[in-house]
């Protein structure tokens, strides 16, 4: 039986990034996914590469990863649709304008350019936003990417460097010796990386990951209707809500002229079906910010599951209870953004190097203070 240096469970963007990074180190890698490349959470998301200030650790990781994406930009084929559209955090009231100013100072302190937009500048930047919004924060370095082709790009890099792909095989068990497949076979590997996203905790229950369902809508092509990724400032409040269902205004312009419209968050949803109630709440929220969205025609609605952890930070590093099993999972809604940094940190840990940022906040061995 063939033995690999590393078996990566999951061919989403995080698994793909790990495969690209580890093959670059000269490792003999196999990537296993029951459903194919970018078939889970990766496929369902938006592809927003965003610097987020939810916590200092989240800022460190998103900033680091965003820089890595920019280094890859020239290498990525055109079908990755890597576009530097920037993000505008939209304030709905004066209280949120205080938050805009706080955010501006915080981003500056972390080396990220941003510009405070007043009411007029906001309308100039996005004429389809409703009148009377007091302003926002433009973070011009944020980008978007078509995450499916970007995942393929990373997988292709790994394959060129000798990685093998096992698609259609379901991993049922992870051990120190490798993985066991549903068909009874096992794959021997010195190191296993659990990059199974929303399903990662099924294989290594040490990880506390809950599925957090989201809805997205995509419209027909309306070139120029939206120019930046627009996110309401209340978004973090929505993302932070621990239990209850929530929605937030979040739209993204695609290079096709289509518009992606989100977002919703629901814990413990029983099925992946579209939930009409929350979909209506989500679109109503969007119409409050952008009334003309009502006139556009949507071509598709779908759902997906974010892999959410108790402290909104991913698991990156060795999993307690194993000798050589690593986690690269639990990225909630930031997996596209933070995939590249995650992969570098996994590679650093395996190679015994110091990472560019402190790995401490993301270690699976961390304990959680419930809040």
């Amino acid at each position: 039986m063939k033995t690999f240096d590393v078996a990566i469970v999951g061919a989403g963007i995080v698994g793909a990034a790990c495969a690209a990074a580890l093959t670059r180190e000269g490792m003999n890698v196999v990537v296993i996914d029951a459903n194919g490349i970018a078939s889970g959470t990766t496929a369902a998301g938006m592809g927003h590469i965003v610097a987020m200030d939810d916590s200092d650790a989240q800022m460190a990781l998103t900033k680091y990863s965003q820089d890595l994406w920019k280094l890859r930009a020239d290498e990525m084929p055109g079908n990755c649709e890597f576009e530097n559209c920037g993000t505008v955090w939209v304030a709905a009231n004066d209280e949120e304008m205080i938050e805009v100013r706080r955010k501006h100072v915080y981003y500056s302190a972390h080396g990220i350019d941003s510009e405070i937009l007043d009411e007029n500048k906001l309308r100039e930047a996005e004429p389809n936003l409703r009148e009377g919004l007091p302003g926002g924060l433009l973070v011009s370095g944020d980008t978007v990417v078509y995450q499916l082709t970007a995942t393929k790009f990373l997988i292709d890099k790994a394959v060129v460097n000798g990685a093998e792909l096992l698609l259609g095989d379901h991993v049922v068990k992870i051990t120190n010796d490798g993985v066991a497949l549903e068909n009874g076979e096992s794959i021997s590997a010195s190191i296993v990386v659990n990059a199974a996203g929303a399903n990662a905790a099924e294989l290594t229950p040490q990880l506390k990951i809950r599925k957090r369902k989201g809805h997205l809508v995509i419209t027909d092509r309306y070139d120029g209707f939206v120019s930046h990724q627009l996110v309401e400032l209340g978004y973090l409040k929505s993302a932070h809500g621990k239990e209850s269902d929530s929605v937030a205004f979040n739209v993204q312009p695609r290079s096709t002229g289509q518009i992606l419209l989100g977002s919703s968050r629901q814990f413990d949803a029983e099925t992946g079906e579209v939930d009409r109630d929350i979909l209506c709440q989500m679109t109503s929220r969007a119409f409050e910010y952008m009334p003309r969205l009502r006139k556009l025609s949507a071509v598709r609605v779908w759902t997906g599951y974010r892999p959410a952890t108790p402290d909104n930070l991913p698991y990156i590093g060795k999993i307690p209870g194993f000798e050589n099993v690593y986690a690269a999972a639990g990225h909630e809604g930031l997996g596209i953004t933070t995939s590249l940094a995650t992969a570098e940190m996994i590679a650093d840990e395996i190679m015994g190097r110091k990472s560019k940022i402190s790995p401490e906040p993301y270690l699976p061995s961390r304990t959680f203070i419930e809040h």
Partner: protein
Amino acid sequence: LITITIDKKSVAVEDGTTVAAAILNAGNTSFRRSVHGDARGPLCGMGTCFECRVTIDGEKHQRSCNAIARDGMEVVTGE
């Protein structure tokens, strides 16, 4: 008769005419362009196939087979 414009040309049509019929009667069978640039026109005529979409009064992607012409309406095809 009422008057609408199709691609900036005035066209007189009977009241109650669908926009799709008005466009066809004006001799135009290329209602829009596909993503790859191919000419597209009405197929189902009942609002299901979305092939007959045109811009009506500035609103893109309107199904012309389901829209009734109104006096002064501005229709743009070929987008």
